[in-house]
C-alpha cells in the first residue's frame, strides 16, 4: 500500500446531457495513447482498436427520431471482472482505484476481454503499423504495444504520473482539474470531467452526487469509477 493511496481515488463523470456524440474524444484518445490503426477488413471482423467508443442509440419512431450517445470506456471497476481471470496478474488493481494493465506481463490469453461486461478491452492481433508521417508523432510517454497484448483505457496514466510528479516536486497534492485525460481535455461541450473522488470538494465529486447519476450495469456489482449523468432533458424528467 503506497503512502499516497488514501489521497487519490480517480474517477470520471460523463454528462450525457452534454454529449453531442461528436467523437472528438475518440480521436484524442487514439492520438494520445498510440492506439493502433485497423484496416477496414479487420474492423469488419470485429478487431477494431478503440479504448473509447461512442455508443449510439436511436429513440422514437420516424419522423420523431432522436439519437442518444454514450461514450464507453474502461469503467475502472472497483470489483473488476477482468482482474481475477488473468493467469499472469497482468490485469491488476492499484491503490488509486485504477484498473491496471501491464503490457510486458500480458501473455494474451484474452480472458480479461471476454470477462469484461463493458467490452472495452481490445487485443492486438497484429503488430501496429502506422503510415508515414504517423510514426513520427507517437506519444513518447506511452508504450507502443506489440502483437498479442491486451490493452484498454488507462485514464491516461501517463498524465496522472506527470501530474503527480509535478505535485510531488512542489510538495503538495494534485490540484483539482490539474490532471485531465485526453478525452476530457478535448470534449468540446465539457461532458467529461475527471478528478479525485476521494476529495469531496472536487468538481468530479460534486457532479457525482447529482440526482441524475447512474452507473453502467450497476446490478453486476462491478462498482465502476465512471459515473454517468442521465441525459434526455425534459423527456426523462420524472
Amino acid at each position, binding site marked *: 500500500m503506497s503512502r499516497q493511496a488514501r489521497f487519490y481515488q480517480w474517477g470520471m463523470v460523463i454528462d450525457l446531457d452534454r454529449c453531442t456524440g461528436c467523437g472528438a474524444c475518440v480521436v484524442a484518445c487514439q492520438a494520445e495513447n498510440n492506439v493502433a490503426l485497423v484496416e477496414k477488413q479487420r474492423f469488419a471482423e470485429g478487431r477494431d482498436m478503440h479504448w473509447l467508443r461512442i455508443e449510439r442509440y436511436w429513440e422514437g419512431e420516424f419522423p420523431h427520431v432522436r439519437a442518444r450517445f454514450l461514450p464507453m470506456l474502461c469503467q475502472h471497476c472497483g470489483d473488476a471482472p477482468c482482474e481475477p481471470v488473468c493467469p499472469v496478474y497482468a490485469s491488476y488493481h492499484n491503490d488509486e482505484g485504477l484498473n491496471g494493465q*501491464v503490457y510486458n506481463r500480458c501473455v494474451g490469453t484474452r480472458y480479461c476481454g471476454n470477462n469484461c461486461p463493458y467490452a472495452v478491452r481490445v487485443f492486438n492481433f497484429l503488430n501496429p503499423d502506422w503510415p508515414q508521417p504517423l510514426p513520427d508523432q507517437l506519444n513518447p510517454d506511452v508504450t507502443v504495444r506489440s502483437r498479442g497484448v491486451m490493452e484498454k483505457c488507462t485514464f491516461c496514466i*501517463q498524465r496522472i504520473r506527470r501530474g503527480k510528479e509535478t505535485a510531488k516536486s512542489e510538495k503538495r497534492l494534485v490540484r483539482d482539474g490539474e490532471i485531465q485525460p485526453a478525452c476530457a481535455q478535448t470534449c468540446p461541450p465539457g461532458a467529461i470531467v475527471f478528478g479525485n473522488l476521494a476529495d469531496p470538494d472536487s468538481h468530479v465529486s460534486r457532479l457525482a452526487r447529482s440526482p441524475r447519476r447512474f452507473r453502467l450495469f450497476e446490478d453486476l456489482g462491478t462498482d465502476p469509477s465512471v459515473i454517468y449523468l442521465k441525459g434526455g432533458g425534459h423527456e426523462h424528467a420524472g
Partner: protein
Amino acid sequence: MRRVALIVVMTLLAGMLTALLALIYNLPLDTRDPAPVQPLAFSHSLHAGDYRIACRYCHRGVEISRTAGIPPLATCQACHLHIASDRPEIVKLLDQMKREEPVEWVKVYDLPEHVYFPHMMHLRAQLDCALCHGDVAGMERITRSVELKMGWCLGCHREHLASIDCWTCHI
C-alpha cells in the same frame, strides 16, 4: 522396481528443468558490450574525476526531465575552443562542430521501451548518480556497472518506501 525408476527419472527431470529456469533467470538482460568504444575518446575520469566538473554541468536535463541527456557539442566547444584545442581528439571534435554533425555516442544504459524511468524523480529523492552509474569519476570509458533488472529496481524502491505499483514504471 519400475515405479522407483520412474520416480527417480521424474525427479531428475524436474531438477534439470529448475536448474535451466534458474540459469535463464540469471542470464544478463543486456548482452551488449558493457563498455562500448565511443566515437570520441571522452574521458570521464579526467573531466568528472580530476577536474571535478559536476555531472549536471553537461547532463543538464537530469533535474527536469526523464532523460539526463547528452550535451550538445556547443557545451564541449565552450571550453575547448581555448583549452587543449590542439589535441587530436579535440581537433576531431571541433571539426565535427564545424561540419555541424552530431557525435553518435553509443548508449551504455538502455532500458526497454516498456519501462518509464524519470531521472528527475530520482534526483528529487536525493539519490546519488553513483547508485546506478557507478564511480563515473574513476572511469576512463563509461562502463555499465549494474544489471538493470526489475528486481534490482524494486529492491531500492522497497528500501526507500517508493511506490511499487506496476503502473509507476510500466505505462
